[in-house]
């Protein structure tokens, strides 16, 4: 999966036709074979643009907040990234006419060990759902798979699970990197900000991190597209995907197989309802 050349061509064309003010893509890291997001305003830098299975980050994040209301942007998105972008469009965070979307039919990206990343193995939609130009061959929607880690944890005893989460989430240092890396966390105020989460979940306590993150994950329930930007950004390496995938699974199984960002104008599972939603858990 190497679309570097094509992306460079498109970028130069967009600059030449004066269609964009800047372009967001990936560039090779200088010290190893990973890549970093790369924002260019100068066409001279175009040759540095690359796209391979190392292009892991979700670049939709670089459209927030309100960037496209001022500037015109060219953007590279994979399947999951485009779903996030789709939601941002629905939630009026992005001006469609000011973003030129290069959609990539993703074949899966690699994790730090060089293996195919878990979210790519379990990916439901590798093709872009919104784009102006598409690269690669579309392979279509796939069947939903329950996350392997969730399955494993669900098997464990309650006490073990409680222990596991309590210990691991104690490491949250409340840096908010997760929130800043998430394209769908564009709010001015957030439940995990220091100020608010102190009020809502206590400050400097061992449980505050876990409970704040739970509230946060519920804000993303039915919206999270499993791009795992948050997890990559977390300095404490918290398994944040566990929270998101758990909610995604419950929503998929109970609310008409809902998946976030798949359709235009779908706002997520919590902003609609069906009369036939499960009722049996209610006394």
């Amino acid at each position: 999966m190497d679309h570097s050349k094509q992306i460079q061509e498109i970028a130069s064309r967009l600059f030449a036709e004066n269609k964009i003010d800047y372009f967001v893509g990936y560039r090779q890291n200088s010290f190893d074979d990973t890549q970093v997001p790369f924002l260019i305003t100068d066409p001279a830098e175009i040759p540095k643009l690359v796209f391979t299975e190392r292009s892991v980050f979700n670049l939709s994040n670089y459209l927030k907040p309100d960037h496209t209301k001022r500037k015109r942007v060219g953007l590279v998105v994979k399947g999951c990234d485009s779903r996030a972008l789709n939601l941002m469009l629905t939630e009026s965070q992005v001006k469609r006419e000011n973003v030129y979307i290069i959609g990539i039919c993703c074949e899966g990206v690699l994790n730090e060990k060089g293996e195919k990343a878990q979210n790519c193995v379990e990916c439901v939609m590798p093709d872009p759902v919104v784009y102006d130009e598409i690269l690669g061959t579309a392979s279509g929607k796939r069947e939903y798979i329950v996350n392997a880690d969730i399955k494993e944890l669900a098997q464990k005893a309650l006490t073990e699970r409680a222990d596991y989460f309590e210990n691991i989430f104690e490491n949250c240092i409340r840096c908010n990197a997760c929130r800043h890396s998430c394209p769908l966390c564009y709010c001015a105020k957030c439940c995990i900000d220091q100020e608010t989460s102190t009020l809502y979940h206590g400050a400097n306590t061992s449980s505050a991190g876990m409970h704040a993150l739970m509230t946060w994950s519920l804000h993303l329930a039915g919206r999270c597209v499993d791009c795992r930007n948050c997890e990559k950004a977390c300095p404490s390496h918290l398994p944040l995907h566990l929270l998101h995938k758990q909610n995604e699974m419950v929503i998929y199984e109970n609310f008409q197989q809902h998946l976030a960002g798949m359709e235009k104008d779908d706002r997520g599972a919590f902003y609609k309802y069906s009369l036939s939603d499960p009722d049996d858990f209610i006394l």
Partner: protein
Amino acid sequence: METEVKKAQGTMVSAENPDITAPADWQPVIMGILCNWCSYAGSDLTGTSRIQYPPNIRIIRVPCSSRVDPWFIIKSLQTAADGVLISGCHPGDCHYISGNYYARRRFLVTKKLLNFIGYHENRVQFSWVSAAEGPKFAKVVAKVTEDIKQLGPLHRYKKENF
């Protein structure tokens, strides 16, 4: 093994963490969040009908079950409560037309997430109680109280400073 010994001695042991125990006469605290139009009115009716139920529940009044943000539940469990009961109008009876339908979706996801993260599923319970269902409210409270007594104390973070 140890847990069973403790239980046999009459000590209450937390379902989530065997190290947390309480004496046999321990009484749980349950946070009840009721919608104003159906369940709160229903609980008032329980009172005017003098129907008796366990005294463990502490009630917060909200206008509608749709006002209940998941963090109400999370915060309650994180602080004093050993369990939470949330009650609203029956589907179709919502005073605000559709509030309880949105709430129902959030409740299911929240309940499952809490269970996944290490809270027993009976810690958080939901019910539909109408303004006419005084006896039902008493029954629901009795059931929830009994369930939570079985689960033992939750106070994992009690000592933390809020």
